[in-house]
Protein backbone atom coordinates (compact mmCIF):
# COMPACT_ATOMS: atom_id res chain seq x y z
CA UNK A 1 0.00 0.00 0.00
CA UNK A 2 2.09 2.89 -1.28
CA UNK A 3 1.65 6.29 0.36
CA UNK A 4 0.53 7.70 -2.96
CA UNK A 5 -2.02 4.98 -3.75
CA UNK A 6 -5.79 5.31 -3.62
CA UNK A 7 -6.02 2.40 -1.15
CA UNK A 8 -3.74 4.27 1.26
CA UNK A 9 -6.04 7.29 1.21
CA UNK A 10 -9.05 5.06 1.98
CA UNK A 11 -7.09 3.31 4.75
CA UNK A 12 -6.09 6.71 6.13
CA UNK A 13 -9.63 8.12 6.20
CA UNK A 14 -10.85 4.96 8.04
CA UNK A 15 -7.95 5.08 10.55
CA UNK A 16 -8.39 8.80 11.30
CA UNK A 17 -12.15 8.39 11.74
CA UNK A 18 -11.80 5.47 14.17
CA UNK A 19 -8.88 7.22 15.95
CA UNK A 20 -11.00 10.22 16.86
CA UNK A 21 -14.17 8.24 17.59
CA UNK A 22 -12.78 5.77 20.15
CA UNK A 23 -12.15 6.78 23.80
CA UNK A 24 -8.88 8.72 24.02
CA UNK A 25 -7.32 6.10 26.31
CA UNK A 26 -7.25 3.55 23.51
CA UNK A 27 -6.23 5.84 20.64
CA UNK A 28 -2.74 4.36 20.69
CA UNK A 29 -4.22 0.88 20.30
CA UNK A 30 -5.94 2.05 17.10
CA UNK A 31 -2.57 3.31 15.87
CA UNK A 32 -0.92 -0.01 16.70
CA UNK A 33 -3.57 -2.04 14.87
CA UNK A 34 -3.51 0.36 11.90
CA UNK A 35 0.30 0.16 11.78
CA UNK A 36 0.29 -3.63 11.65
CA UNK A 37 -2.51 -3.69 9.07
CA UNK A 38 -0.52 -1.25 6.96
CA UNK A 39 2.73 -3.19 7.30
CA UNK A 40 1.05 -6.52 6.55
CA UNK A 41 -0.37 -5.02 3.36
CA UNK A 42 3.19 -5.50 2.06
CA UNK A 43 2.97 -9.26 2.76
CA UNK A 44 2.70 -11.65 5.70
CA UNK A 45 6.17 -13.14 5.34
CA UNK A 46 7.84 -9.96 6.55
CA UNK A 47 6.02 -9.97 9.91
CA UNK A 48 8.69 -12.20 11.48
CA UNK A 49 11.40 -9.60 10.87
CA UNK A 50 9.38 -6.80 12.45
CA UNK A 51 8.53 -8.95 15.48
CA UNK A 52 12.15 -10.09 15.95
CA UNK A 53 13.37 -6.50 16.08
CA UNK A 54 10.48 -5.43 18.30
CA UNK A 55 10.94 -8.28 20.80
CA UNK A 56 14.75 -8.13 20.99
CA UNK A 57 14.98 -4.36 21.34
CA UNK A 58 12.10 -4.31 23.85
CA UNK A 59 13.71 -7.03 26.00
CA UNK A 60 17.16 -5.45 25.61
CA UNK A 61 15.82 -2.09 26.73
CA UNK A 62 14.21 -3.64 29.82
CA UNK A 63 17.38 -5.54 30.79
CA UNK A 64 19.56 -2.45 30.34
CA UNK A 65 17.08 -0.32 32.27
CA UNK A 66 17.14 -2.82 35.14
CA UNK A 67 20.97 -2.73 35.26
CA UNK A 68 20.90 1.09 35.19
CA UNK A 69 18.55 1.09 38.20
CA UNK A 70 20.61 -1.45 40.12
CA UNK A 71 23.81 0.51 39.52
CA UNK A 72 22.15 3.69 40.72
CA UNK A 73 20.89 1.93 43.87
CA UNK A 74 24.30 0.48 44.69
CA UNK A 75 25.97 3.84 44.21
CA UNK A 76 23.36 5.45 46.44
CA UNK A 77 23.98 2.81 49.11
CA UNK A 78 27.66 3.69 49.11
CA UNK A 79 26.74 7.30 49.85
CA UNK A 80 28.35 10.55 48.77
CA UNK A 81 31.37 10.14 51.00
CA UNK A 82 32.54 6.84 49.51
CA UNK A 83 35.91 6.82 47.75
CA UNK A 84 35.74 7.52 44.02
CA UNK A 85 37.73 4.31 43.39
CA UNK A 86 34.99 2.24 44.99
CA UNK A 87 32.33 3.93 42.87
CA UNK A 88 34.39 3.38 39.74
CA UNK A 89 34.61 -0.37 40.47
CA UNK A 90 30.81 -0.64 40.71
CA UNK A 91 30.32 1.48 37.57
CA UNK A 92 32.83 -0.74 35.75
CA UNK A 93 31.04 -3.98 36.68
CA UNK A 94 27.70 -2.70 35.40
CA UNK A 95 29.17 -1.15 32.26
CA UNK A 96 30.68 -4.52 31.31
CA UNK A 97 27.36 -6.33 31.78
CA UNK A 98 25.50 -3.67 29.82
CA UNK A 99 28.04 -3.84 27.00
CA UNK A 100 27.40 -7.56 26.53
CA UNK A 101 23.65 -7.06 26.35
CA UNK A 102 23.96 -4.15 23.94
CA UNK A 103 26.39 -6.09 21.75
CA UNK A 104 23.95 -9.01 21.61
CA UNK A 105 20.99 -6.84 20.59
CA UNK A 106 23.01 -4.99 17.96
CA UNK A 107 24.45 -8.23 16.62
CA UNK A 108 21.01 -9.81 16.18
CA UNK A 109 19.47 -6.79 14.48
CA UNK A 110 22.33 -5.59 12.33
CA UNK A 111 23.13 -9.24 11.68
CA UNK A 112 19.70 -9.72 10.11
CA UNK A 113 20.09 -6.49 8.14
CA UNK A 114 23.59 -7.40 6.97
CA UNK A 115 22.61 -10.96 6.07
CA UNK A 116 19.66 -9.89 3.95
CA UNK A 117 21.16 -6.78 2.46
CA UNK A 118 24.78 -7.79 1.97
CA UNK A 119 24.96 -11.60 1.86
CA UNK A 120 24.52 -12.03 -1.89
CA UNK A 121 26.94 -9.22 -2.66
CA UNK A 122 29.56 -10.66 -0.31
CA UNK A 123 29.02 -14.20 -1.61
CA UNK A 124 29.29 -13.05 -5.23
CA UNK A 125 32.60 -11.29 -4.63
CA UNK A 126 33.99 -14.06 -2.43
CA UNK A 127 33.08 -16.59 -5.13
CA UNK A 128 35.15 -14.60 -7.60
CA UNK A 129 38.09 -14.84 -5.23
CA UNK A 130 37.49 -18.49 -4.33
CA UNK A 131 37.20 -19.31 -8.02
CA UNK A 132 40.86 -18.44 -8.43
CA UNK A 133 41.94 -21.22 -6.07
CA UNK A 134 39.18 -23.84 -5.93
CA UNK A 135 35.79 -25.03 -7.13
CA UNK A 136 34.17 -24.03 -3.86
CA UNK A 137 31.47 -21.41 -4.03
CA UNK A 138 28.89 -19.87 -1.73
CA UNK A 139 25.26 -20.34 -2.80
CA UNK A 140 23.16 -17.36 -3.84
CA UNK A 141 20.03 -16.71 -1.79
CA UNK A 142 16.74 -15.41 -3.07
CA UNK A 143 16.02 -13.15 -0.13
CA UNK A 144 13.87 -10.13 -0.66
CA UNK A 145 14.56 -7.12 1.50
CA UNK A 146 11.53 -6.69 3.81
CA UNK A 147 10.21 -3.14 3.35
CA UNK A 148 11.27 -0.64 5.97
CA UNK A 149 13.74 -3.08 7.58
CA UNK A 150 16.70 -0.70 7.76
CA UNK A 151 14.50 2.20 8.91
CA UNK A 152 12.89 0.42 11.84
CA UNK A 153 16.08 -1.39 12.81
CA UNK A 154 17.94 1.93 12.99
CA UNK A 155 15.10 3.50 14.97
CA UNK A 156 14.81 0.72 17.53
CA UNK A 157 18.56 0.13 17.97
CA UNK A 158 18.89 3.89 18.56
CA UNK A 159 16.40 3.42 21.41
CA UNK A 160 18.44 0.55 22.92
CA UNK A 161 21.67 2.57 22.73
CA UNK A 162 19.94 5.53 24.41
CA UNK A 163 18.75 3.30 27.26
CA UNK A 164 22.29 1.90 27.51
CA UNK A 165 23.54 5.47 27.79
CA UNK A 166 20.88 6.13 30.50
CA UNK A 167 19.35 8.88 28.41
CA UNK A 168 15.88 7.70 29.47
CA UNK A 169 14.10 4.76 31.10
CA UNK A 170 12.89 1.90 28.89
CA UNK A 171 9.26 1.48 27.85
CA UNK A 172 7.66 -1.20 30.01
CA UNK A 173 4.51 -1.82 27.95
CA UNK A 174 5.37 -4.18 25.10
CA UNK A 175 2.47 -3.10 22.90
CA UNK A 176 3.25 0.59 23.31
CA UNK A 177 6.84 -0.15 22.36
CA UNK A 178 5.64 -2.16 19.37
CA UNK A 179 3.79 0.96 18.21
CA UNK A 180 6.97 3.05 18.44
CA UNK A 181 8.76 0.55 16.16
CA UNK A 182 5.93 0.16 13.67
CA UNK A 183 4.13 3.55 13.53
CA UNK A 184 2.61 3.27 10.07
CA UNK A 185 3.32 6.54 8.31
CA UNK A 186 7.07 6.27 8.86
CA UNK A 187 7.84 2.55 8.85
CA UNK A 188 8.58 2.30 5.13
CA UNK A 189 10.93 5.24 4.52
CA UNK A 190 11.49 7.01 7.83
CA UNK A 191 12.25 9.55 9.16
CA UNK A 192 14.27 7.60 11.73
CA UNK A 193 12.72 9.04 14.88
CA UNK A 194 14.00 9.15 18.44
CA UNK A 195 12.06 7.54 21.26
CA UNK A 196 12.12 10.63 23.51
CA UNK A 197 10.85 12.81 20.67
CA UNK A 198 8.15 10.55 19.23
CA UNK A 199 6.96 7.87 21.66
CA UNK A 200 5.13 10.01 24.24
CA UNK A 201 3.19 11.66 21.42
CA UNK A 202 2.04 8.25 20.19
CA UNK A 203 0.68 7.29 23.62
CA UNK A 204 -0.91 10.63 24.57
CA UNK A 205 -4.60 11.40 24.11
CA UNK A 206 -5.32 13.67 21.13
CA UNK A 207 -8.46 15.71 20.52
CA UNK A 208 -9.59 16.40 16.99
CA UNK A 209 -8.39 19.77 15.79
CA UNK A 210 -9.59 21.39 12.60
CA UNK A 211 -6.36 23.40 12.38
CA UNK A 212 -4.23 20.26 12.61
CA UNK A 213 -6.37 18.60 9.95
CA UNK A 214 -5.88 21.63 7.71
CA UNK A 215 -2.12 21.80 8.31
CA UNK A 216 -1.76 18.06 7.80
CA UNK A 217 -3.68 18.13 4.53
CA UNK A 218 -1.63 21.12 3.33
CA UNK A 219 1.61 19.29 4.04
CA UNK A 220 0.33 16.11 2.39
CA UNK A 221 -0.76 18.04 -0.70
CA UNK A 222 2.68 19.65 -0.93
CA UNK A 223 4.20 16.17 -0.72
CA UNK A 224 1.84 14.74 -3.37
CA UNK A 225 2.58 17.73 -5.59
CA UNK A 226 6.33 17.08 -5.43
CA UNK A 227 5.94 13.33 -5.85
CA UNK A 228 3.16 13.00 -8.44
CA UNK A 229 3.60 16.15 -10.50
CA UNK A 230 7.39 16.55 -10.52
CA UNK A 231 9.22 13.37 -9.41
CA UNK A 232 7.13 10.88 -11.37
CA UNK A 233 7.33 13.10 -14.46
CA UNK A 234 11.12 13.50 -14.39
CA UNK A 235 11.31 9.73 -13.81
CA UNK A 236 10.35 9.16 -17.45
CA UNK A 237 13.49 10.86 -18.82
CA UNK A 238 15.65 9.40 -16.05
CA UNK A 239 14.52 5.83 -16.74
CA UNK A 240 14.82 6.17 -20.52
CA UNK A 241 18.33 7.58 -20.50
CA UNK A 242 19.77 5.50 -17.65
CA UNK A 243 18.40 2.25 -19.09
CA UNK A 244 20.07 2.79 -22.50
CA UNK A 245 22.69 5.40 -21.72
CA UNK A 246 25.00 4.30 -24.54
CA UNK A 247 22.42 5.61 -27.03
CA UNK A 248 22.72 9.14 -25.68
CA UNK A 249 25.30 11.90 -25.85
CA UNK A 250 27.09 13.26 -22.79
CA UNK A 251 24.87 16.33 -22.60
CA UNK A 252 21.71 14.20 -22.72
CA UNK A 253 23.10 11.99 -19.95
CA UNK A 254 23.97 15.08 -17.89
CA UNK A 255 20.44 16.38 -18.46
CA UNK A 256 19.01 13.06 -17.23
CA UNK A 257 21.23 13.19 -14.14
CA UNK A 258 19.99 16.74 -13.53
CA UNK A 259 16.42 15.43 -13.84
CA UNK A 260 17.33 12.67 -11.40
CA UNK A 261 18.54 15.25 -8.86
CA UNK A 262 15.10 16.86 -9.09
CA UNK A 263 13.36 13.48 -9.02
CA UNK A 264 15.08 12.07 -5.95
CA UNK A 265 14.60 15.26 -3.95
CA UNK A 266 10.91 15.59 -4.86
CA UNK A 267 10.32 11.86 -4.38
CA UNK A 268 11.97 11.50 -0.97
CA UNK A 269 11.08 14.89 0.53
CA UNK A 270 7.57 14.59 -0.95
CA UNK A 271 7.16 11.21 0.74
CA UNK A 272 8.37 12.64 4.06
CA UNK A 273 5.93 15.58 3.74
CA UNK A 274 3.07 13.12 3.23
CA UNK A 275 4.23 11.11 6.26
CA UNK A 276 4.53 14.22 8.45
CA UNK A 277 1.19 15.48 7.20
CA UNK A 278 -0.52 12.19 8.15
CA UNK A 279 1.10 12.29 11.59
CA UNK A 280 0.04 15.91 12.04
CA UNK A 281 -3.60 15.01 11.44
CA UNK A 282 -3.21 12.35 14.16
CA UNK A 283 -1.87 15.03 16.53
CA UNK A 284 1.74 13.89 16.27
CA UNK A 285 4.68 16.10 15.27
CA UNK A 286 7.45 14.23 13.51
CA UNK A 287 10.97 15.49 12.93
CA UNK A 288 11.74 16.95 9.52
CA UNK A 289 14.14 15.08 7.30
CA UNK A 290 15.12 17.89 4.92
CA UNK A 291 16.31 21.45 5.17
CA UNK A 292 16.55 22.65 1.59
CA UNK A 293 19.62 20.55 0.72
CA UNK A 294 20.21 22.20 -2.66
CA UNK A 295 21.14 25.44 -0.89
CA UNK A 296 24.01 23.68 0.91
CA UNK A 297 27.38 25.44 0.76
CA UNK A 298 29.50 22.31 1.20
CA UNK A 299 29.10 18.56 0.86
CA UNK A 300 29.03 18.13 4.65
CA UNK A 301 26.41 20.89 4.83
CA UNK A 302 24.42 18.99 2.19
CA UNK A 303 24.42 15.89 4.38
CA UNK A 304 23.25 17.96 7.34
CA UNK A 305 20.26 19.02 5.23
CA UNK A 306 19.51 15.78 3.35
CA UNK A 307 17.99 12.77 5.14
CA UNK A 308 18.72 14.56 8.41
CA UNK A 309 17.49 11.72 10.61
CA UNK A 310 19.99 9.24 9.11
CA UNK A 311 22.86 11.75 9.44
CA UNK A 312 21.89 12.47 13.06
CA UNK A 313 21.70 8.72 13.78
CA UNK A 314 25.17 8.23 12.32
CA UNK A 315 26.53 11.20 14.32
CA UNK A 316 25.09 10.14 17.67
CA UNK A 317 25.58 6.39 17.46
CA UNK A 318 28.53 5.84 15.11
CA UNK A 319 30.60 9.05 14.93
CA UNK A 320 30.67 9.69 18.69
CA UNK A 321 30.98 6.01 19.59
CA UNK A 322 34.02 5.62 17.35
CA UNK A 323 35.61 9.01 18.09
CA UNK A 324 35.52 8.42 21.83
CA UNK A 325 36.47 4.74 21.72
CA UNK A 326 39.78 3.58 23.20
CA UNK A 327 41.46 2.66 19.88
CA UNK A 328 40.70 6.08 18.40
CA UNK A 329 41.76 7.74 21.65
CA UNK A 330 45.13 6.00 21.33
CA UNK A 331 45.34 6.91 17.65
CA UNK A 332 44.64 10.52 18.58
CA UNK A 333 47.49 10.59 21.08
CA UNK A 334 49.83 8.99 18.56
CA UNK A 335 48.79 11.41 15.80
CA UNK A 336 49.27 14.44 18.04
CA UNK A 337 52.82 13.30 18.82
CA UNK A 338 53.71 12.28 15.29
CA UNK A 339 52.15 15.15 13.34
CA UNK A 340 52.43 18.55 14.89
CA UNK A 341 49.76 21.18 14.37
CA UNK A 342 46.28 20.85 12.96
CA UNK A 343 46.79 17.55 11.13
CA UNK A 344 47.71 15.71 14.34
CA UNK A 345 44.60 17.03 16.05
CA UNK A 346 42.10 16.20 13.38
CA UNK A 347 43.51 13.05 11.80
CA UNK A 348 41.56 10.54 13.95
CA UNK A 349 38.34 12.50 13.70
CA UNK A 350 38.81 12.78 9.93
CA UNK A 351 39.23 9.02 9.73
CA UNK A 352 35.99 8.56 11.67
CA UNK A 353 34.27 11.02 9.33
CA UNK A 354 35.38 8.96 6.38
CA UNK A 355 34.05 5.77 8.02
CA UNK A 356 30.70 7.46 8.72
CA UNK A 357 30.20 8.65 5.14
CA UNK A 358 31.39 5.35 3.79
CA UNK A 359 28.76 3.67 6.00
CA UNK A 360 26.07 6.07 4.75
CA UNK A 361 27.10 5.05 1.23
CA UNK A 362 26.73 1.33 1.82
CA UNK A 363 23.57 1.88 3.90
CA UNK A 364 21.91 2.45 0.52
CA UNK A 365 22.63 -1.10 -0.57
CA UNK A 366 25.15 -3.79 -1.39
CA UNK A 367 26.84 -2.83 -4.59
CA UNK A 368 30.19 -1.48 -5.70
CA UNK A 369 28.41 1.66 -6.88
CA UNK A 370 27.32 2.46 -3.30
CA UNK A 371 30.84 1.75 -2.05
CA UNK A 372 32.09 4.23 -4.67
CA UNK A 373 29.39 6.68 -3.56
CA UNK A 374 30.55 6.33 0.05
CA UNK A 375 34.19 6.86 -0.93
CA UNK A 376 33.22 9.86 -3.08
CA UNK A 377 31.40 11.61 -0.21
CA UNK A 378 33.74 10.45 2.56
CA UNK A 379 36.85 11.29 0.53
CA UNK A 380 35.78 14.84 -0.33
CA UNK A 381 34.53 15.67 3.16
CA UNK A 382 37.62 14.25 4.85
CA UNK A 383 39.86 16.13 2.41
CA UNK A 384 38.05 19.41 3.12
CA UNK A 385 38.23 18.86 6.88
CA UNK A 386 41.98 18.32 6.75
CA UNK A 387 42.50 21.30 4.46
CA UNK A 388 40.08 23.72 6.15
CA UNK A 389 42.87 25.93 7.63
CA UNK A 390 44.51 26.24 4.18
CA UNK A 391 41.24 27.42 2.63
CA UNK A 392 41.02 30.40 4.98
CA UNK A 393 44.63 31.31 4.16
CA UNK A 394 43.95 31.15 0.40
CA UNK A 395 40.76 33.20 0.76
CA UNK A 396 42.69 35.77 2.78
CA UNK A 397 45.41 36.02 0.14
CA UNK A 398 42.87 36.38 -2.67
CA UNK A 399 40.98 39.00 -0.63
CA UNK A 400 37.75 37.03 -0.85
CA UNK A 401 35.20 37.76 1.84
CA UNK A 402 33.78 34.37 2.88
CA UNK A 403 30.55 36.09 3.93
CA UNK A 404 29.89 37.72 0.54
CA UNK A 405 26.91 36.66 -1.55
CA UNK A 406 29.05 35.81 -4.60
CA UNK A 407 31.23 33.48 -2.57
CA UNK A 408 28.12 31.81 -1.10
CA UNK A 409 26.69 31.35 -4.62
CA UNK A 410 29.99 29.89 -5.77
CA UNK A 411 29.93 27.49 -2.81
CA UNK A 412 26.36 26.42 -3.61
CA UNK A 413 27.29 25.85 -7.28
CA UNK A 414 30.39 23.85 -6.29
CA UNK A 415 28.37 21.70 -3.90
CA UNK A 416 25.69 21.13 -6.54
CA UNK A 417 28.33 19.84 -8.96
CA UNK A 418 29.75 17.45 -6.33
CA UNK A 419 26.28 16.14 -5.47
CA UNK A 420 25.49 15.91 -9.19
CA UNK A 421 28.52 13.67 -9.81
CA UNK A 422 27.56 11.50 -6.82
CA UNK A 423 24.13 10.91 -8.39
CA UNK A 424 25.70 9.04 -11.32
CA UNK A 425 26.64 6.37 -8.79
CA UNK A 426 23.34 6.14 -6.92
CA UNK A 427 21.19 5.93 -10.07
CA UNK A 428 23.51 4.12 -12.44
CA UNK A 429 22.74 0.41 -12.88
CA UNK A 430 26.11 -0.54 -11.46
CA UNK A 431 29.55 0.94 -10.89
CA UNK A 432 30.78 0.35 -14.43
CA UNK A 433 27.65 1.93 -15.96
CA UNK A 434 28.07 4.96 -13.71
CA UNK A 435 31.72 5.35 -14.68
CA UNK A 436 30.92 4.93 -18.39
CA UNK A 437 28.20 7.55 -18.09
CA UNK A 438 30.62 9.98 -16.44
CA UNK A 439 33.13 9.25 -19.19
CA UNK A 440 30.52 9.94 -21.89
CA UNK A 441 29.50 13.16 -20.15
CA UNK A 442 33.07 14.42 -20.14
CA UNK A 443 34.36 13.13 -23.48
CA UNK A 444 31.23 13.24 -25.71
CA UNK A 445 29.27 16.14 -24.27
CA UNK A 446 27.92 17.41 -27.62
CA UNK A 447 25.50 20.09 -26.41
CA UNK A 448 23.86 20.37 -29.85
CA UNK A 449 22.43 16.88 -29.59
CA UNK A 450 20.61 17.84 -26.39
CA UNK A 451 19.05 20.92 -27.99
CA UNK A 452 17.96 18.88 -30.97
CA UNK A 453 16.70 15.91 -29.00
CA UNK A 454 15.38 17.26 -25.68
CA UNK A 455 11.74 16.61 -26.62
CA UNK A 456 12.54 13.03 -27.69
CA UNK A 457 13.82 11.89 -24.31
CA UNK A 458 10.39 10.77 -23.17
CA UNK A 459 8.65 13.99 -22.12
CA UNK A 460 6.67 16.31 -24.41
CA UNK A 461 7.30 20.05 -24.45
CA UNK A 462 4.22 20.48 -22.21
CA UNK A 463 5.56 17.98 -19.66
CA UNK A 464 8.96 19.65 -19.63
CA UNK A 465 7.24 22.99 -19.11
CA UNK A 466 5.32 21.50 -16.16
CA UNK A 467 8.61 20.23 -14.65
CA UNK A 468 10.23 23.63 -15.20
CA UNK A 469 7.39 25.72 -13.74
CA UNK A 470 6.66 23.39 -10.81
CA UNK A 471 10.41 23.05 -10.14
CA UNK A 472 10.55 26.85 -9.90
CA UNK A 473 7.64 26.80 -7.42
CA UNK A 474 9.56 24.33 -5.20
CA UNK A 475 12.73 26.42 -5.57
CA UNK A 476 10.89 29.65 -4.70
CA UNK A 477 9.30 28.02 -1.64
CA UNK A 478 12.77 26.78 -0.61
CA UNK A 479 14.28 30.23 -1.08
CA UNK A 480 11.56 31.82 1.06
CA UNK A 481 12.11 29.29 3.83
CA UNK A 482 15.87 29.71 3.55
CA UNK A 483 15.35 33.43 4.20
CA UNK A 484 13.36 32.60 7.32
CA UNK A 485 9.80 32.98 6.01
CA UNK A 486 7.34 30.48 7.41
CA UNK A 487 5.18 29.91 4.35
CA UNK A 488 2.31 28.39 6.31
CA UNK A 489 2.15 31.36 8.70
CA UNK A 490 2.48 33.81 5.81
CA UNK A 491 -0.45 32.09 4.09
CA UNK A 492 -2.52 32.16 7.29
CA UNK A 493 -2.30 35.96 7.34
CA UNK A 494 -3.90 36.23 3.89
CA UNK A 495 -7.67 36.34 3.49
CA UNK A 496 -9.68 33.12 3.08
CA UNK A 497 -10.03 33.60 -0.68
CA UNK A 498 -6.24 33.57 -1.18
CA UNK A 499 -5.81 30.63 1.21
CA UNK A 500 -8.44 28.55 -0.58
CA UNK A 501 -7.13 29.55 -4.01
CA UNK A 502 -3.63 28.30 -3.14
CA UNK A 503 -5.06 25.07 -1.74
CA UNK A 504 -7.31 24.52 -4.74
CA UNK A 505 -4.47 25.32 -7.18
CA UNK A 506 -2.36 22.67 -5.47
CA UNK A 507 -5.17 20.14 -5.55
CA UNK A 508 -5.93 20.87 -9.22
CA UNK A 509 -2.25 20.53 -10.09
CA UNK A 510 -2.13 17.11 -8.38
CA UNK A 511 -5.37 15.90 -9.97
CA UNK A 512 -4.73 17.13 -13.49
CA UNK A 513 -0.93 17.11 -13.68
CA UNK A 514 -0.08 14.13 -11.48
CA UNK A 515 1.32 11.05 -13.19
CA UNK A 516 -0.88 8.06 -12.46
CA UNK A 517 -0.28 4.53 -13.57
CA UNK A 518 -2.02 1.18 -13.35
CA UNK A 519 -5.47 2.48 -12.62
CA UNK A 520 -4.62 5.56 -10.61
CA UNK A 521 -1.87 3.98 -8.55
CA UNK A 522 1.19 6.13 -8.58
CA UNK A 523 4.66 4.64 -8.71
CA UNK A 524 6.54 3.56 -5.58
CA UNK A 525 8.89 5.81 -3.63
CA UNK A 526 12.60 5.45 -4.34
CA UNK A 527 13.71 5.26 -0.69
CA UNK A 528 11.41 2.31 -0.02
CA UNK A 529 14.11 0.04 -1.48
CA UNK A 530 16.71 1.15 1.09
Amino acid at each position, binding site marked *: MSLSSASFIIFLVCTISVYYLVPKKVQWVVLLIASYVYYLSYGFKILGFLLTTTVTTYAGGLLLGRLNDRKKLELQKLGNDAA*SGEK*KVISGIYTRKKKWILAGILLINFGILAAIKYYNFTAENLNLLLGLFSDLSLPKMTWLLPVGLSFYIFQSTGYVIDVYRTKYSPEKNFFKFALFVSFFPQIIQGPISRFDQLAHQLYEAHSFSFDRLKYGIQLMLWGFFKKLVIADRTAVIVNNVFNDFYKYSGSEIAFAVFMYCIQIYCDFSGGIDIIRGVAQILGIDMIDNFQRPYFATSLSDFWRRWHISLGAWMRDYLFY*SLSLSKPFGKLGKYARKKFKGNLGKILPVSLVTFIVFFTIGIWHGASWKYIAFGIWNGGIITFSVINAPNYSKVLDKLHINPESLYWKLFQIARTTVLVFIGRYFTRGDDLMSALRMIKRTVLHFDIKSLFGNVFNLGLSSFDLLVVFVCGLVVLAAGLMEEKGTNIRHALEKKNMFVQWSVLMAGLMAIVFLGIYREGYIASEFIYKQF
Partner: protein
Amino acid sequence: MEELYKILKELRPDVNFDEKKALIDDGILDSFDIVALVGEIGETFDVQVGVEDLIPENFNSVEAIWTLINRLRDGE
Protein backbone atom coordinates in the same frame (compact mmCIF):
# COMPACT_ATOMS: atom_id res chain seq x y z
CA MET B 1 37.33 25.99 36.15
CA GLU B 2 39.95 28.34 34.70
CA GLU B 3 41.58 25.44 32.94
CA LEU B 4 38.25 24.58 31.33
CA TYR B 5 37.87 28.17 30.14
CA LYS B 6 41.36 27.97 28.66
CA ILE B 7 40.51 24.79 26.74
CA LEU B 8 37.28 26.30 25.41
CA LYS B 9 38.95 29.57 24.41
CA GLU B 10 41.63 27.68 22.50
CA LEU B 11 39.05 25.51 20.83
CA ARG B 12 36.69 28.30 19.81
CA PRO B 13 38.21 31.78 20.26
CA ASP B 14 35.16 33.27 18.49
CA VAL B 15 32.68 32.28 21.20
CA ASN B 16 31.93 34.17 24.41
CA PHE B 17 31.42 31.24 26.76
CA ASP B 18 30.16 33.42 29.64
CA GLU B 19 27.14 34.50 27.66
CA LYS B 20 26.20 31.33 25.80
CA LYS B 21 23.96 28.93 27.69
CA ALA B 22 22.82 26.70 24.82
CA LEU B 23 26.10 25.75 23.15
CA ILE B 24 24.68 22.53 21.73
CA ASP B 25 21.01 23.41 21.28
CA ASP B 26 21.96 26.54 19.32
CA GLY B 27 24.49 24.63 17.24
CA ILE B 28 27.48 26.70 18.43
CA LEU B 29 29.61 23.63 19.17
CA ASP B 30 29.53 21.03 16.41
CA SER B 31 30.42 17.35 16.59
CA PHE B 32 34.09 18.02 15.77
CA ASP B 33 34.33 20.58 18.59
CA ILE B 34 32.76 18.11 21.00
CA VAL B 35 35.20 15.33 20.14
CA ALA B 36 38.18 17.71 20.49
CA LEU B 37 36.77 19.10 23.75
CA VAL B 38 36.24 15.64 25.22
CA GLY B 39 39.83 14.70 24.31
CA GLU B 40 41.24 17.80 26.02
CA ILE B 41 39.03 17.38 29.10
CA GLY B 42 40.16 13.76 29.40
CA GLU B 43 43.84 14.70 29.33
CA THR B 44 43.62 17.78 31.55
CA PHE B 45 41.31 16.48 34.26
CA ASP B 46 42.16 12.76 34.05
CA VAL B 47 38.57 11.68 33.53
CA GLN B 48 36.96 9.46 30.93
CA VAL B 49 34.02 11.16 29.20
CA GLY B 50 31.89 8.36 27.79
CA VAL B 51 29.56 8.46 24.82
CA GLU B 52 26.68 8.21 27.31
CA ASP B 53 27.70 11.61 28.68
CA LEU B 54 27.30 13.25 25.28
CA ILE B 55 23.88 14.74 25.84
CA PRO B 56 23.14 18.43 25.21
CA GLU B 57 22.46 19.10 28.91
CA ASN B 58 26.07 18.22 29.76
CA PHE B 59 27.59 20.59 27.19
CA ASN B 60 25.20 23.51 26.85
CA SER B 61 27.16 25.83 29.16
CA VAL B 62 30.54 26.09 30.90
CA GLU B 63 28.82 25.38 34.23
CA ALA B 64 27.21 22.22 32.82
CA ILE B 65 30.56 20.98 31.47
CA TRP B 66 32.17 21.73 34.83
CA THR B 67 29.45 19.78 36.66
CA LEU B 68 30.03 16.84 34.32
CA ILE B 69 33.79 16.90 34.97
CA ASN B 70 33.22 16.91 38.73
CA ARG B 71 30.71 14.10 38.50
CA LEU B 72 33.17 12.00 36.51
CA ARG B 73 36.01 12.82 38.93
CA ASP B 74 33.74 11.57 41.67
CA GLY B 75 33.61 8.20 39.93
CA GLU B 76 29.91 8.13 39.07
